[in-house]
């Protein structure tokens, strides 16, 4: 098309509707769409989609049949018109106009949903690659055909132009807009959905329509799904669970921190709650069942069982070893709770102790014995007052026999306090 090695940028809006001319100069149809195969970082077009006049059905032509994009038309190679065939789209192929243009996508760079106004393409030799997506107002103006006039006017009056807002294709995850599609067509993105922070994912999920919400959630791995589900608005949690298979849900529940799993389950209808609990694995099931016993609004309902406790005669070195063994995310790493042989709480040690003191010092020597404790039935608002007063990162929850049952972290208290 161009001289070999020459690169040229094009916008999809410039190509849309272009006449398709065969090697004899005859009009064969208009450019309706472009098909791309996902997988590369900047995938190239595999097919040209053609709309013939008066015919509703779209045909496709291999991109290799395209001779040139010069002169505001698309010229085909000799005999290419014989090789039109019916349009088919595989699960790893994407139609630019039908599935991308004007649709919402996930911008994994900005961690938000954006709408595609135009698509930025690059011509390299005879190949057409997708390089950027245009989210900005320039895209809209260009689609209206007013870009030259707009630039002229803004330059004349304000010595400026409307800014570009192009995001690289490697940060774009397309969403589906055909209700019959069950899954997302995953793009190889540099920053993938999994790298987003769970609360960013939760925000994105809350903004999406129901179908895309489930599709996006289904595409996440178990760990990310578990963290995201915990961060999502409770009203949506139920609908996400309904959209997943029983197996997926039980895997996620096992992966979630017990207190978050408990919050989730507590809001579900009784029957569904019991069914889901039965599918959980023993350790997580027991933790959840214990937490479910506590009434809402009490310390017990907020506490987590993810904490580190150690017997008082053990040493700093052994405490560090225990720490290393923990594989699940610990909400509170600031404190190590020290117990006696019967698991009764006797003192608390800090991270600072672990780092600064001699490895063979027994914890009993270092621990702080003046403890502020909570009981499971204490009201949440009293707990909030304690946090405000003492400004701890976490507070231990003990029962009447002084047995350590769980801890309440600052993170949980902030969420609760903000809700009120």
């Amino acid at each position, binding site marked *: 098309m161009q001289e070999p090695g020459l690169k040229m940028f094009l916008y999809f809006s410039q190509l849309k509707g272009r006449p398709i001319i065969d090697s004899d100069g005859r009009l064969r149809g208009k450019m309706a769409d472009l098909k791309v195969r996902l997988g590369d970082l900047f995938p190239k077009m595999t097919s040209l989609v053609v709309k013939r006049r008066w015919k509703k059905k779209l045909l496709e032509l291999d991109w290799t049949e395209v001779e040139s994009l010069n002169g505001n038309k698309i010229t085909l190679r000799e005999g290419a018109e014989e090789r039109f065939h019916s349009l088919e789209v595989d699960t790893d192929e994407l139609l630019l106009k039908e599935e991308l243009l004007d649709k919402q996508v996930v911008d994994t760079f900005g961690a938000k949903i954006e*709408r595609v106004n135009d698509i930025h393409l690059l011509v390299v030799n005879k190949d057409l690659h997708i390089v950027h997506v245009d989210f900005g107002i320039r895209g809209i103006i260009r689609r*209206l055909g007013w870009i030259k006039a707009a630039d002229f006017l803004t330059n004349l009056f304000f010595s400026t132009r409307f800014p570009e807002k192009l995001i690289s294709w490697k940060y774009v995850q397309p969403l589906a807009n*055909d209700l*019959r599609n069950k899954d997302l067509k995953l793009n190889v993105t540099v920053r993938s959905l999994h790298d987003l922070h769970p609360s960013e994912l939760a925000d994105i999920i809350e903004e999406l329509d*129901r179908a895309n919400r489930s599709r996006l959630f289904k595409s996440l791995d178990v760990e990310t799904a578990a963290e995201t589900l915990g961060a999502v608005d409770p009203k*949506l949690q139920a609908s996400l669970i309904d959209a997943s298979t029983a197996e997926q849900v039980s895997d996620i529940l096992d992966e979630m921190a017990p207190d978050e799993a408990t919050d989730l389950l507590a809001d579900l209808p009784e029957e569904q709650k019991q069914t889901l609990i039965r599918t959980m694995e023993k350790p997580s099931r027991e933790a959840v069942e214990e937490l479910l016993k506590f009434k809402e609004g009490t310390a017990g309902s907020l506490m987590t069982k993810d904490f580190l406790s150690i017997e008082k005669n053990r040493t700093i070195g052994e405490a560090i070893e225990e720490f290393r063994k923990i594989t699940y995310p610990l909400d509170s790493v600031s404190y190590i709770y020290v117990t006696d042989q019967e698991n009764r709480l006797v003192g608390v040690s800090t991270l600072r102790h672990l780092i600064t003191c001699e490895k063979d010092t027994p914890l009993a020597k270092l621990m702080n014995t003046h403890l502020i404790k909570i009981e499971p039935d204490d009201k949440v608002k009293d707990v909030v007052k304690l946090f405000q007063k003492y400004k701890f990162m976490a507070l231990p929850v003990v029962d009447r026999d002084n047995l350590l049952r769980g801890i309440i972290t600052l993170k949980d208290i902030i969420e609760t306090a903000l809700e009120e």
Partner: protein
Amino acid sequence: MNIAQRIKESPKLRTFLLFLAILGPGIVTGSVDNDAGGITTYSVAGAIYGYKLLWTLIPSFLLLVVVQEMNARMGIVTGKGLADLIRENFGVKVTFIIFVGLVLADIGNTATEFAGVAGSLNVFGVSKYISVPLVAVGVWILVTKGDYKTAERIFLFFSFCLLSYIISAVLAKPDWHEVGKAFLKPQMHFDGQYISMVLGIVGTTIAPWMQFYMQSAVIEKRIKLKDYKFALWDVIVGCTATVVVAFFIMVACAATLHKNGLTINEAKDAAVALKPFAGAFASQLFAFGLFIASVFSATILPLATAFYVCEAFGFEAGINKKIGEAPQFYALFGFIMSVAVVIILIPGAPLITITIWSQVINAMLLPVVLYSMIRMVNKKKIMGDRVNNRFQNIVGWAGAVILMALTAILLISQVVSSLKK
């Protein structure tokens, strides 16, 4: 068992509460429907034509239910707003044209609401040059700094005032036989004024902006597919309420104004319709009701319009966002309100005429929105199994075609009559 558990266990109680919880979009939209434009148009129709325009309420009701049901269904199935759907399926150019039309129509509609504010406070002797700017500023403050949700609830509560029309209509002792006959027997007169009244009635009952509003309300409630039946009942109840109120406004005005040869030149003239019910307090009651309805809609209309335009073009929008976070949204909201206020403040502006014509513009825009809705609601790609059935398509298409035909006739007759001069 505490209350929450008792509710979870009893299916009947759950059904009722579910209905109440979902009860919303249709009823709210139905209330908003009877705004200054509605009250004025129905009043004028009754005053000028007596019972002769009552028949228009039946096809209007039919079209209204079909259209609102489509919106509710689209909202439930896709979870996307009407503006989003139009953008996704018709592209930038078509969306732009539709929204230019919508913004123009809504500037007219907002002007109508401020006309209502001016007219109602005029009853108490307040000049429009004071009432309109004050209310406009008040609305701006309410939206940017106040608690909109509570205000919405207060307004909705007071929309019960409209029931006074029902009582008044009955007390005016119209000839119900005559009313029934006129209601059931369509009559078409091909003169400009009659046709514009017909279009006005349709336009105020089925205003395009309400389609967008209804769908948004459905989405906000996150109504699930399995609860569709409740949403359908909600729509039917809302539409019925709208048309019932319209019916009684027309009958009340016909039985009081038309019978005595009175016309409506400004809003306070329409208060006569409430005399059978409120006697000497008719004016005050009318003014109060009109004021509440007008302020309510004057708040919602420009907000909703700005919101849908931003939604369609990807700008940030929402009253929960600060002005700096959503500049285009607030700018558009301010723009629509300002132009509307300016129109009303023009000395000698014929407020009633402006009101009727803004509703006619609604009816002219409706076929365009209706067309795009019907196209989308029939696509399996968008609606899955829940595409239109034949009846809905017939009513929808017929509505669009008839409205376009009436619009054409009206415009031709306007051209012809102005050429004659």
